[in-house]
């Protein structure tokens, strides 16, 4: 358990900093630090067991069907990385407390940092590879937040986006690779996969799996040709750069290579791809680093170079190289993190990171300068520092890697890389800290508060101590981690400063001397280099992204051009094609049922329907007329429901018809009364053919369905309505009980639609839309009495009657036609009539409740009714009913479904009234009319469009 807690603690603790920031920055940093510290302590509790050779494991099932388990394990390698992450994290937290300015939201920073820390720990401690991938992507996401922490800087946002695109994309490739690996070995648990190296390397899927996994690892660790994102991520605050981009995140790829080393390493493909990429990255990045003027960019490329070094060591696939890789990971984390922090201090104190504007800082900031000099000496690989030790081991390993064709290629290039490394390290030291003191610094520098240089000092002390006493301090850690990778067969190696005169020492001497010469010739070399053309990685990346975005846009806009008619056409055509295919391929006998006589009543209704439809087609440009004709169609449809014994549907249809017609009338008021003819004749002919075709097809389908016997679920519903749902109105029982979950979903959708109407129309009250609205003038003459006496009085008299009808329909709904939906529409119509007759202003002043809240209550009541079933141990939305005897009233049935229906009722009323209220807000903004006080009112000449405050 405690192993899982190591990972979870930072995630849980991430809520603390944003809360604690109110108590001050120091408290906030302390709390964050204590979260990390407790996680570290929990981790170190496992250390003795791990170094005894045990592997603590903890596992919980998560999604067993996918093979995803919540499982962690700690071996020497995982423990080494986890301790590195937490220990350096602690130093970074202290450093960031003093680095961040007063205006930077520190709570947010620490929150992101802890999220990142948890994700990183998840990577190094996960047992399940799918879980590992989840954490892998979480580091991409949290590093996105951290890189873009200074949201106001465009470089920060672009850098964050680039890092996310590259590392996230690589993560996807790795997901595929991991799935392949799981397929080969039959398990997603690392502890099981690691033992099956032979099987994996012999599998035909080995190469694709290797390539995909390497894609993930190389993007994360910024290996060539994906090295370009790391320098752009330097737009982040320096603590982030020091933590993510030197010590932890970029090492995730390296970590994974080491983790899968026992399984994947040892083939020719591995040597060529991993070793080759590492070597190329090491040399190219070191070359670029030498000429970067921005200190952080210099350090970023040097990081890329050192990561290439480690990748190359993994690529050699010899046990000795693996030990060297582990050792160098440790050393690089210490000196590079220290160097980033000193760069941050310089930036903080001088307000410039440009190497050309700096120099002589050692005299002004003696502490920082000394620390930086020691750290850069370690980066250059000078004795007696830890960088020297691992560089020697690297050169030793490179000296043994001799492909027969080019025996001198690897040692030669490795020495050249080391030479460049000496050169840029020396440049960081000489051009920034040594030399004469200048008088043109942007700000006069001095040493920062101790909080900022102490973390650096701790790291530099480690650099020196590991360099002097490597076997005593780093020995057990390196041995434990290497042991976990190599599976118990440690090679013959010795961590020591002096091995005698070895080829590696000679190569090192050549590199140091050459590096110093190169720095001495820096400006001439640079002039030559500047004269040469160079590819700019960011420009290429931007071009690729732009190209992809343009292609996606062309593809989407090609299909979705925003024209609704077109979408409808796609629908109709595809349905028509499906029907035709079915018609051609299917087997269809003539119907067996006897057709019924239609009767003259149905004939008349049918003719009216037909007339209505033709009328709409003929007059669809005159919008009011089209609306009236549409409602005629709706009326006939509701009569048809009545004729076919579906009173519930008829009631619903007619009330929906009334509400929509009124709302559309109100909306049409602001639109032109006629539509302009836009479509060509050919197009209209095409649409007409489509419409006739689909109509004929549907008529045929309906005819075929109705002329044969078929069984459906309706018999069951009819049977179970009374015993199962306690109501005799099957439609209502289905709505609130049998298919209550559907209804619940539907009212939520309705509520969202209501809010969407609010959002859309609210936009019309702001900005340019509002100004256009204020200029709007009615396109038809207005009557002098806008609110005539007779309808005003009639609707007011009708209001209680209509409300009573609504209540009545609601109450009887369970057994007779009616229910919450219809009753809500009736109530809405009663209220709509007030708006229509007495004016928006008058009605708004009197109907004072908030319709948004009504929608919320409706959904809430319906949901709570559903949850109520849980109290009785029943599934969600199980309804209960019973009969109760009341004095006077008699026996009454009470069902929980009625409460659910109340929720439906409130949501529907709310949604309709939100639409109405927002139309009325628009109307009042467009035509500010005085609110009448008496039923009969003349309205004086309509006032000028005034800028009166919005009334409610």
């Amino acid at each position, binding site marked *: 358990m405690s192993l899982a807690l190591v990972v979870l603690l930072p995630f849980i603790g991430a809520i603390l900093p944003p809360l604690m920031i109110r108590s001050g920055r120091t408290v906030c940093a302390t709390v964050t630090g204590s979260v990390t510290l407790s996680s570290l302590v929990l981790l170190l509790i496992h250390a003795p067991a791990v170094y005894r050779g045990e592997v603590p494991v903890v596992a919980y099932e998560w999604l067993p069907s996918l093979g995803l388990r919540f499982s962690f394990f700690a071996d020497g390698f995982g423990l080494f990385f986890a301790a590195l992450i937490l220990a350096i994290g602690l130093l970074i937290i202290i450093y960031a407390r003093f680095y961040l300015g007063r205006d930077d939201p520190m709570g947010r920073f620490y929150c992101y940092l802890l999220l990142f820390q948890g994700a990183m720990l998840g990577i190094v401690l996960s047992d399940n590879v799918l879980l590992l991938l989840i954490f892998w992507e979480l580091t991409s996401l949290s590093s996105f937040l951290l890189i873009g922490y200074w949201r106001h800087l465009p470089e920060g946002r672009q850098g964050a986006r680039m890092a996310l695109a590259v590392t996230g994309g690589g993560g996807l490739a790795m997901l595929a690779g991991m799935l392949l690996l799981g397929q080969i070995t039959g398990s997603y648990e690392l502890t099981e996969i690691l033992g099956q190296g032979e099987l994996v390397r012999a599998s035909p899927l080995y190469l694709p799996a290797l390539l995909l996994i390497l894609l993930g690892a190389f993007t994360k660790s910024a290996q060539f040709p994906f090295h370009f994102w790391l320098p752009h991520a330097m737009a982040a605050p320096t603590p982030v750069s020091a933590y993510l981009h030197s010590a932890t995140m970029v090492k995730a790829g390296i970590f994974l290579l080491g983790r899968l080393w026992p399984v994947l390493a040892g083939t020719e493909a591995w040597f060529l791809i991993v070793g080759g990429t590492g070597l190329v990255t090491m040399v190219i990045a070191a070359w670029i680093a030498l000429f970067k003027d921005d200190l952080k960019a210099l350090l970023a490329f040097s990081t890329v170079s050192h990561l290439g070094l480690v990748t190359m060591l993994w690529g050699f696939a010899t046990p000795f190289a693996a030990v060297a890789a582990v050792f160098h990971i440790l050393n690089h984390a210490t000196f590079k993190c220290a160097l980033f922090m000193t760069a941050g201090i310089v930036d903080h104190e001088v307000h410039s990171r440009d190497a050309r504007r700096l120099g002589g800082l050692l005299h002004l900031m003696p502490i920082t300068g000394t620390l930086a000099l020691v750290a850069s000496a370690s980066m250059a690989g000078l004795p007696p520092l830890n960088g020297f030790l691992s560089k020697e081991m690297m050169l030793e390993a490179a000296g043994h890697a001799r492909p027969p064709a080019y025996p001198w290629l690897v040692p030669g290039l490795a020495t050249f890389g080391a030479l460049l490394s000496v050169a840029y390290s020396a440049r960081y030291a000489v051009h920034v800290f040594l030399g004469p003191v200048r008088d043109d610094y942007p700000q006069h520098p001095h040493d920062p508060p101790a909080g900022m240089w102490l973390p650096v000092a701790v790291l530099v002390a480690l650099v020196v101590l590991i360099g002097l006493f490597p076997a005593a301090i780093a020995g057990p850690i390196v041995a434990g981690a290497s042991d976990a990778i190599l599976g118990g067969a440690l090679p013959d190696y010795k961590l020591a400063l002096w091995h005698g005169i070895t080829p590696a020492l000679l190569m090192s001497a050549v590199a140091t001397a050459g590096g110093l010469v190169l720095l001495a010739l820096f400006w001439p070399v640079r002039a030559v280099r500047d004269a040469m053309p160079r590819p700019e990685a960011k420009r290429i990346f931007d071009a690729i992204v732009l190209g992809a975005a343009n292609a996606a846009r062309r593809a989407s806009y090609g299909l979705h051009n925003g024209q609704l008619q077109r979408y409808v056409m796609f629908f109709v055509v595809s349905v028509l094609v499906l029907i035709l295919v079915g018609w051609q391929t299917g087997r269809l006998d003539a119907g067996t049922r006897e057709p019924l006589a239609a009767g003259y009543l149905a004939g008349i209704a049918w003719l009216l329907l037909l007339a209505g439809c033709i009328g709409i087609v003929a007059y669809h440009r005159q919008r009011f007329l089209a609306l009236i004709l549409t409602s005629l169609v709706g009326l006939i449809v509701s009569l048809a429901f009545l004729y076919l014994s579906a009173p519930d549907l008829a009631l619903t249809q007619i009330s929906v018809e009334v509400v929509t017609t009124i709302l559309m009338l109100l909306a049409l008021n602001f639109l032109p009364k006629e539509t302009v003819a836009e479509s060509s004749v050919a197009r209209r002919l095409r649409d007409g053919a489509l419409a006739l075709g689909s109509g004929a097809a549907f008529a045929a389908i309906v005819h075929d369905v109705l002329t044969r016997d078929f069984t459906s679920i309706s018999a069951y519903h009819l049977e179970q309505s009374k015993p199962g749902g306690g109501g005799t109105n099957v439609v209502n029982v289905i709505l609130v009980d049998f298919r209550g979950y559907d209804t619940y979903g539907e009212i939520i959708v309705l509520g969202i639609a209501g809010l969407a109407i609010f959002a859309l129309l609210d936009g019309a009250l702001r900005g340019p839309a509002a100004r256009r609205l204020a200029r709007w003038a009615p396109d038809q003459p207005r009557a002098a*009495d806008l609110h005539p006496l007779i*309808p005003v009085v*009639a609707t007011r008299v009708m209001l209680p009657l209509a409300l009573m009808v609504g209540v009545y329909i609601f109450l009887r709904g369970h057994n007779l036609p009616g229910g919450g939906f219809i009753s809500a529409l009736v109530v809405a119509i009663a209220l709509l009539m007030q708006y229509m007759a007495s004016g928006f202003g008058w009605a708004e002043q009197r109907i004072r409740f908030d319709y948004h809240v009504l929608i919320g209550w409706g959904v809430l009541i319906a949901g709570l009714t559903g949850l109520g079933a849980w109290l009785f141990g029943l599934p969600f939305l199980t309804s209960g009913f019973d009969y109760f005897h009341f004095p006077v009233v008699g026996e009454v049935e009470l069902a929980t479904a009625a409460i659910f229906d109340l929720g439906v009722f409130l949501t529907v009323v709310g949604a309709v009234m939100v639409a109405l209220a927002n139309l009325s807000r628009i109307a009042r903004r467009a035509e500010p009319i*005085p609110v*009448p006080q008496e039923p009969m009112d*003349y*309205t*004086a000449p309509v006032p000028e469009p005034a800028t009166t405050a919005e009334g*409610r």
Partner: protein
Amino acid sequence: MLIAEAVVAALLLTGSFFLLVGSVGLLKLPDLMTRLHAPTKATTLGIGSVLIASVVYFAAIEGRVSIHELLITLFLFLTAPVTAHMVAKAHLHRDRATAERLPPAAGGGGWATLDDDPEPGARSEPSGP
């Protein structure tokens, strides 16, 4: 029984007659204002007779009291005049020729649909806060 049947039959016949008159009027009368009388007056009367026939039928022959008809009557008597009134007003408002033939309104001040308030501001307050 026979008497009840006779009463129902008579009421139904009366109702049908007035409904027919209303429909013929809607078809035949010359302009909107006169045509408006047919469906509102004659038809209302006709429907009323049919509804009374229904009440009598259920009370005397089926032997139970039905109040639906009363409600229908109530709503019908409420809606028909309002509809007629609104149609007439809309016609006045839109058809200038009719508006010009109107007699002067009693009590001065003009026709509500067409003319402005003689005492502006006396009956209304500015729109809400």
